[in-house]
């Protein structure tokens, strides 16, 4: 009897409608007006790579040990180095990082013994060409540069 009444008066549907009705004025609005409103990125976010430099001397922190290149599952890091004749130490010459193949797993960052290579919170990695996705040492140190046009 009670079940029949519930059926006749559509109580199950009204119960569901009441749930949606309660959200007439939601407390939190989850939609983000993206370019105007920037998302909050977590501190540990793994985004664009950066090659850190010593802020006082402007020299790179990288010791050209090649561990990041060995750790990378996709072999997308190429470290170029030459031996300094005076100090007998390896000096970094070139560093390329192909972000088009990167899956941001963070293994290179973990492998770095001097915290030179770091994945930053920057997530806007679009470029106009495939070559633009291959970052050289200058780009890794200074951050991505916006494309400039002649006009």
């Amino acid at each position: 009897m009670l079940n029949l009444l519930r059926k006749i008066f559509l109580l199950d549907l009204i119960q569901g409608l009441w749930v949606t009705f309660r959200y007439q004025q939601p407390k939190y609005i989850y939609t983000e007006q993206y370019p105007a409103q920037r998302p909050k990125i977590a501190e540990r976010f793994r985004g664009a790579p950066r090659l850190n430099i010593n802020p006082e001397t402007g020299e790179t922190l990288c010791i050209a040990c090649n561990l990041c290149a060995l750790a990378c599952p996709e072999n997308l890091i190429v470290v170029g180095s030459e031996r300094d004749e005076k100090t007998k130490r390896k000096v970094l010459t070139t560093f390329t990082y192909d972000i088009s193949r990167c899956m941001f797993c963070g293994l290179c960052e973990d492998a770095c013994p001097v915290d030179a290579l770091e994945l930053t919170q920057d997530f806007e990695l679009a470029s106009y060409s495939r070559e633009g996705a291959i970052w050289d040492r200058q780009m890794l140190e200074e951050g991505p540069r916006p494309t400039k046009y002649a006009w």
Partner: protein
Amino acid sequence: MPDGTFLDATELVLNMGPQHPSTHGVLRVILKLDGEKVIGTECVIGYLHRGVEKIAENRTYPQFAPYVDRMDYVAAVSNGLGYCLAVEKLLGVEVPPRAQAIRVILTELNRIASHLIWLGTHALDVGAITPLFYCMREREEILNIFEKYCGARLTTHAFRIGGLQYETYDTFESDVRAFCDMFLPKVDEYEELLTGNRIWIGRLRNVGILNAEDCKAYGVTGPLLRAAGVKWDLRKAQPYSGYEQYDFEIPTGTRGDSYDRYLVRIQEMRQSVRIIRQALDGLPGGPIMGKVPKVIKPPVGEVYVSIEAPKGELGYYIVSDGSTQPYRVRVRPPSFVNLQALDKMCRGALVADVVVVIGTIDIVLGEVDR
């Protein structure tokens, strides 16, 4: 597909997918129909095949860990846990208790996230659009916790072989606790929307019945098996990562139909919250990384480790030839095995029920095809 290629005049072969939105990805199902009735189905898979098992043979053990996240991408943490446990067993490495507890918290959070995606998309397939938005809203909170913990939201790469790479962040405990407190009333809300709803019951009740014998014959695991009334959960049957310390129940159904699977998964979300709370209460201190050699070179041998992923038994079979790279990695994905039962569940049903059955199996094509 049933025998014989000649069709009766009333029979019709219909392609469903691979671009059909309710096949949850790129599954193609060839339906043989008699009017509206399904008399046979055949799955065509492989549209998302990336050769993950072959990739493993060219990567070192730690290097392969990010790839397993890309199989079942809605439950990436569970995949990572299974792989790490397998390699740890091969190495004979003990994982510190703190790392184990944090692993349990994260995998249970991921179980909730995976079930939320399932609930939202399954309800969407059936025609209830509202739960999708609510489920995504709660899942967002879980993904935020993942992002703060390990820096990625979906393909997390949260665990490393031997333990964890990252220590918990400052507000980790309070964030997870706040999520647990917030989440339980929301589950009641989903139930208010769906459990008593006559359309939902009408679409799901007695659709896609798979009894316990059939489940065992097909190797079906996870919520499908439990909905058929079998109390089988690897977290209880073969406890791993310290699951034996936690007190939780295995929800089971009785009829083994789609509606029971829905109830089982809803209950599982509640049980996951219970496990998370216990793990947080007894979160031990100490190191988070076990004694793992710098170069991971397991001894010659083979190992099979399986865990209870959100979708069923997820197993890793790894053969080591003593080098830094695995000789062979075979993954036993739950979705792939569960998908076999689609034909059995669809026969005699209507075309609209095929959508329900695909939804209720909870497949992720990234895992089916690998």
